[in-house]
């Protein structure tokens, strides 16, 4: 086989990584290069350095160490039966690319994943070596996200957590049955156990040690996972149920939903159609409701007929229309929890309402200045001088709101 140039390898191994949704570089500890004299910092929130025309942000250099793989997961372009071109980076090539890109301010750091060659430990060992060289030899202070291989040894995972900001393991599909069907060599039991081990390790290392009272470094950005949506028949309710379980059980920072994307040379086990991008978007919105708006998973879709999120309107509005008895909410008196459930009021707006109403009674026009679309909020609230009357229970409310929101989005 002809020797590939770094540029050719980069083309193959970034193409192979594009189905991974995560590119986040946030949530780690604050760090800068002032003391080390090296390169790189993280300041809590990540920075998106570019955007691809698919609307997704580019924050990290997201590549595979290699796309050779002994597994044969039918949704994956790198599965062993696929006819895709193969390449393999040397450790030093990844290190140099990361540093060259970082110095020019193209990226926040590295997201390294890999196909499994020969054995999980050999692959994981090389990934850890990339991270070690970056941290120790290059004094690199930027973000490092490693995708761990579930079967890798505990020592390797521990070292990975020492160098990396975030570790992740993909659950791949919402149910064990689907994993068994589409990824026959992957074991859902092993994936759970790995996540459980990571959570315990993260919690253990977060405790100050007895001797030094200092905390040891271990994946300060936590762990995350990705679930492919639309490759199997699981409903949105089933997907959210899986997420709620993952957040509760393993304290994941994020669950990423990746709308199943048709891949070249795809397996006949999969649907050949465009990814359901709107479905992915609605799932992210519902995920936010669970994480930041106090919704429990079962109530998001309670009362819906098919367990699917409405593609036309956002899940909070859909919930409010199904639960009109809980409205209107008085913006001058209601508790935070109740305000968070009003369609059109985000967490920030709710905080502003609560702060402001200590000094002023809020009128509808005040709210108009605080939130994006008062048309969406109006039927669900009581304000000084405003009561929605029969509007809340009006039969055509859904149409009225969607129409006025569409008009607003024109400019």
């Amino acid at each position, binding site marked *: 086989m002809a020797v590939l140039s770094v540029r050719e390898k980069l083309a193959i191994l970034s193409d192979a990584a594009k189905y991974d949704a995560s590119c986040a570089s946030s949530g780690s500890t604050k760090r800068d290069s002032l003391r*080390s004299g090296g*390169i790189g910092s993280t300041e809590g929130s990540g920075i998106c350095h570019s955007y691809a*025309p*698919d609307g997704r942000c*580019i924050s990290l250099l997201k590549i595979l160490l290699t796309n050779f793989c002994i597994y044969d997961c039918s949704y994956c372009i790198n599965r062993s039966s696929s006819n895709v071109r193969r390449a393999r980076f040397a450790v030093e090539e990844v290190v140099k690319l990361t540093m060259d890109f970082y110095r020019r301010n193209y990226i926040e750091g590295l997201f390294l994943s890999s196909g499994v060659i020969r054995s999980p430990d050999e692959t994981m060992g090389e990934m850890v070596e990339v991270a070690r060289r970056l941290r120790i030899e290059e004094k690199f202070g930027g973000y490092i996200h490693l995708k761990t291989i579930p079967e890798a040894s505990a020592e390797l995972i521990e070292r990975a957590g020492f160098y990396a900001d975030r570790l992740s393991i993909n659950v791949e599909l919402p149910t064990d049955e689907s994993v068994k069907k589409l990824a026959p060599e992957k074991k859902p039991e092993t994936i759970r156990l790995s996540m459980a081990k990571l959570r315990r390790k993260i919690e253990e290392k977060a405790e100050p040690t007895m001797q030094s009272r200092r905390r040891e470094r271990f994946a300060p950005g936590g762990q995350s996972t990705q679930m492919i949506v639309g490759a199997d028949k699981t409903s949105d309710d089933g997907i959210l149920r899986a997420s709620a379980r993952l957040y509760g059980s393993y304290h994941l920072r994020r669950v990423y939903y990746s709308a199943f994307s048709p891949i070249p040379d795809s397996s006949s086990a999969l649907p050949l159609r465009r990814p359901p991008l709107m479905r992915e978007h609605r799932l992210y919105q519902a995920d936010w409701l669970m994480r930041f708006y106090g919704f429990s998973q079962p109530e998001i879709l309670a009362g819906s007929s098919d367990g699917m999120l409405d593609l036309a309107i956002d899940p909070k509005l859909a919930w409010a229309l199904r639960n009109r008895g809980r409205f209107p909410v008085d913006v001058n008196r209601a508790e935070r929890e109740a305000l968070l459930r009003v369609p059109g009021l985000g967490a920030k707006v709710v905080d502003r309402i609560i702060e402001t109403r*200590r000094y002023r009674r809020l009128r509808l026009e*005040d709210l108009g200045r605080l939130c994006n679309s008062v048309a969406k909020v109006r039927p669900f609230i009581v304000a000084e001088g405003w009561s929605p009357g029969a509007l809340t229970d009006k039969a055509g409310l859904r149409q009225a709101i969607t129409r006025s929101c569409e008009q607003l989005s024109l400019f």
Partner: protein
Amino acid sequence: MASTQLNLATHLVRLDSETDFAGWRDAARRLATNDIRPESVAWQVPDSECRVDDLPAAKPDARLVVPRDFIDRAETVICHCDPERFGFLYRLLWRLRSEPMLLSIASDPDIRKLEAMEKAVHRDIHKMRAFVRFRKIGEGTDERYVAWFEPDHFIVERNADFFVRRFTGMRWTILSPHASADWNGERLAIGPGAGKRDAPAEDDAEALWRTYFENIFNPARLKVKAMQREMPKKYWRNLPEASLIPDLIAGADKAASAMIDRMPTTPAPHHAKVKAKHWPTPGPSDVVAPEAEDIPELREEAKGCRRCPLWRDATQTVFGEGPENADVVFVGEQPGDQEDLAGKPFVGPAGRIFDSILDDAEIDRRKVYVTNAVKHFKFEPRGKRRIHSKPNAGEIQACRWWLDKELDLIKPNLVVALGATAAQSLLGKAVPITKMRGDVIQREDGLRVFLTIHPSFILRIREQEDKEAERERFLKDMRKVKQLMAA
């Protein structure tokens, strides 16, 4: 407009630069303490031709108190490009004298404006951090990185520290029309503005970066609007990858349909070899495993238990632990959060209290067998917590299969039922634990069952005194167990 204002103004403030916060603050103090109204002040920066007026000195005895928050926010807003910002900030300061809570009234139009200006400056600062693109010049000791950037607001100075923190070990310069920032590895210097021509031409890394950009894009997911919202076109001219965007968009449809149209082909040539080497076909799975003859075998079997649906949400089966010839078996309810993660019974908070009481009762935990009536954790996820929920009769019944086998193999002298669930499993019916606590019931098969509470009950008591009392009672139960063990 501006000239009318100048004519009406009785006081003119000339600031040193577009971002002269110290100058603004000093002037504002003098003006406000002398009760000079915002309408009669005009503000200027150096480039503008105008007369200079002397301001009265600040009144030494006059108190001027503003919230700390206001100073921070004004420092941000002064970087905004709006020429009216100095006067606007002074007007806010003026209002703050009589409305001290003004900053908390988010619905006030002036506060809305303040927020909008702050947001614009922050966004510009953020975009500069994102879209500055360094180009390398020189090699070895001459190596330097130079960038050209065109911000909307006067933010270069304010943002320079970020680049120092990030690129300490590198020599760099950021050029912009308004100002430049230079870091020589030790010191930061802010200099005058520059032109795009002062920046170097593209370097080798840009071709690699464009390769990455082209390939990380998935043509099946075109979302041009989302891209442009975050990366407006005005930045494109200084981003090396942006020149690719039009072609990527134009070709996306074709590329995506090509992906979809390409029919599944025959497996790659090496696939069969990989399969043979790494995935030996497992033995036929429908062969019934021989009956487990000891606890390790039983534990292995229980790993794949599907007797009830609880395995779905749990991490793993938590099987019993202890010597196979133990005299006594303790049976709890079900594993909890920590047990589910660790795969071992009684390691969480309830396990710790259980251990310490066994210790006080002089029962050696290493010599007893500890297990649960139900071997998968049953819970409701609530945010980042799992709320324990009680196993129902069906689940207890399904899991009894394992408990019976454990007892068959161990043949203990005594079983301790910790709590109602354990009692129900062991006796086959619900019994009132609080009433029958301390009783020993002999089953039909001759096995003696000692009834007591579950140690997690002690954890739930809030009052320290009651808690101590309950712990004493449980200790007494355990001492009784010790006596019975010997009997």
